[in-house]
């Protein structure tokens, strides 16, 4: 893990509220890891913001992020050539070396971001990708090369199936389910997986201050005691946390 200043190579708007940023760095994060990002000095929010790795190739790391508040709004205003303060790669990702066979990757909203890199990194698996959005999908082309099938659900029904992404498939048909999205969606999915014996990994979200395991601000209760989402997660085995 490092704390560095890196050059932004690209920061482009993808939808109304979603941006993609490419940053120069030689580190090779694991799928599911994240960085703490700060694109402002003392002027701007106090804390850095956790953003998952959406792609990485040994020279660059790509982030896909949604503008929600001040921090992400400031990130969206940065331009190619400017510097970004990065701390990471942080946390433990999806143990993809253990994942084999039929895999469902399931995302809700911007939880899509880390799962791009996950889908790309899975080896020797048949991957189906299920993605839920509010109204419209974005950046699906990033995953298409790596998966067998993509199915979309939207809240509004404007694209794909109207309703929950979890209604698109039966977890029992898969050996593994890997998911990132709203807590309620993940909880429902995790319980379904546990009921049918499918191994399920979830990527949790918590408000974070340090992002490295020092402040104990992101603790969650697990079967193995209190764990830091930032350092011991964000990825956990479903039965550890639900």
């Amino acid at each position, binding site marked *: *893990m*490092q*704390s560095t200043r890196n050059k932004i190579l690209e920061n482009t708007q993808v939808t109304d509220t979603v941006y993609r940023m490419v940053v120069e760095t030689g580190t090779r994060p694991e799928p599911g890891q994240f960085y703490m990002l*700060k694109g402002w000095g*003392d002027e701007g*929010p*106090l*804390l*850095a913001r956790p953003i998952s790795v959406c792609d990485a190739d040994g020279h660059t790391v790509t982030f896909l992020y949604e503008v929600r508040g001040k921090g992400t709004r400031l990130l969206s205003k940065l331009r190619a050539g400017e510097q970004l*303060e990065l*701390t990471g790669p942080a946390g433990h990702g999806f143990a993809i070396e253990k994942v084999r066979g039929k895999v469902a990757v399931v995302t809700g909203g911007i939880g899509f971001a880390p799962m791009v890199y996950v889908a790309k990194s899975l080896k020797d698996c048949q991957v189906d990708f299920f993605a839920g959005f509010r109204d419209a999908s974005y950046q699906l082309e990033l995953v298409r090369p790596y998966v067998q099938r993509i199915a979309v659900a939207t809240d509004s029904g404007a694209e794909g199936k109207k309703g929950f992404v979890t209604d698109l498939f039966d977890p029992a048909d898969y050996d593994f389910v890997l998911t990132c999205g709203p807590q309620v969606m993940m909880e429902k999915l995790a319980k379904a997986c546990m009921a049918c014996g499918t191994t399920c990994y979830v990527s949790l979200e918590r*408000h*974070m*201050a*340090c*992002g*490295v*395991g*020092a*402040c*104990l*601000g*992101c*603790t969650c*209760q697990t079967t193995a005691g*209190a764990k830091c989402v930032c*350092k011991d997660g964000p990825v956990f085995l479903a039965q550890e946390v639900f």
Partner: protein
Amino acid sequence: MLVTELCGVTLKNPVIAASGTFGFGKEYAEIFDISRLGGISSKGLTLEPRFGNTGERVYETASGLINSIGLQNPGVEAFIKEDLPFMQKSGAAVIVNLGGHDLDSYLKGVELLDSQDFDLLELNISCPNVKAGGMAFGMEPATAGHVVKEVRARCHKPLMVKLSPNAPDLVGVALSCQQAGADCLSLVNTFQGMAIDIYRQKPVFDNVFAGFSGPAILPIALRMVYQVCAAVEIPVVGLGGISSAEDAIAFMMAGARAVQVGTATFARPTAMLDIIDGMEDFCKQQKLAHIGDIVGAANPGFRGRR
């Protein structure tokens, strides 16, 4: 140029990582060379392990942070076995921060720790987040003096007492701790603050009130350090919102012998290194032989030694 003596302990420089913001040093050791620090104060310990508080634990405000960690810690025994050895090898002075929910738990904690190898005991009588944090003890001169006196009698390490900015009579508490045998004081711990989630129409934290820190609080913390330094003769370690060398120097000019840095490390993990470098630059630029020369320089009432 920056070497500082604190109660007989030699610090490489006056910059100490504040309790609860640096774990036991392991996490940040992956990011930078922590042996460059003057000292590290451990996460606040209690005799028994604690899970800490439920619900939201951190909330950002304008230039500040509210936390409701609630002293999550492994307990003194596990600390001695699993974390102290790492701190001992860190290369920085080792400060062990201890809280308690009653006199007995403080004394048992001190008893276990006293025979261990570390530099200073920081007695936390000021954590606002839990009864175990001891803020109850830190609010009044008499109760503060009592716990310090009892701990003093059983503790052979230099004793630093960490004060609460929420004490109605902070100077009285400081004097009472000095009187009871504290070797030095550190202040401030977090201010009691709160936040409300207007969409849920509820306080953000399960405990309602929580501890407020970061650059936002600096002007009040600095005032308190200035007031305490004009009252006590023992050394004072100043903290509260420090995020730059200029901030740290201001606390020293108010009378602090050394400083601690907490929340700023979250904002930028290497903040303390920049502060150390900035102090050195300041000494050179202002032609100071030693950073200690400025201690109390802006405080005519300063009663300590340089």
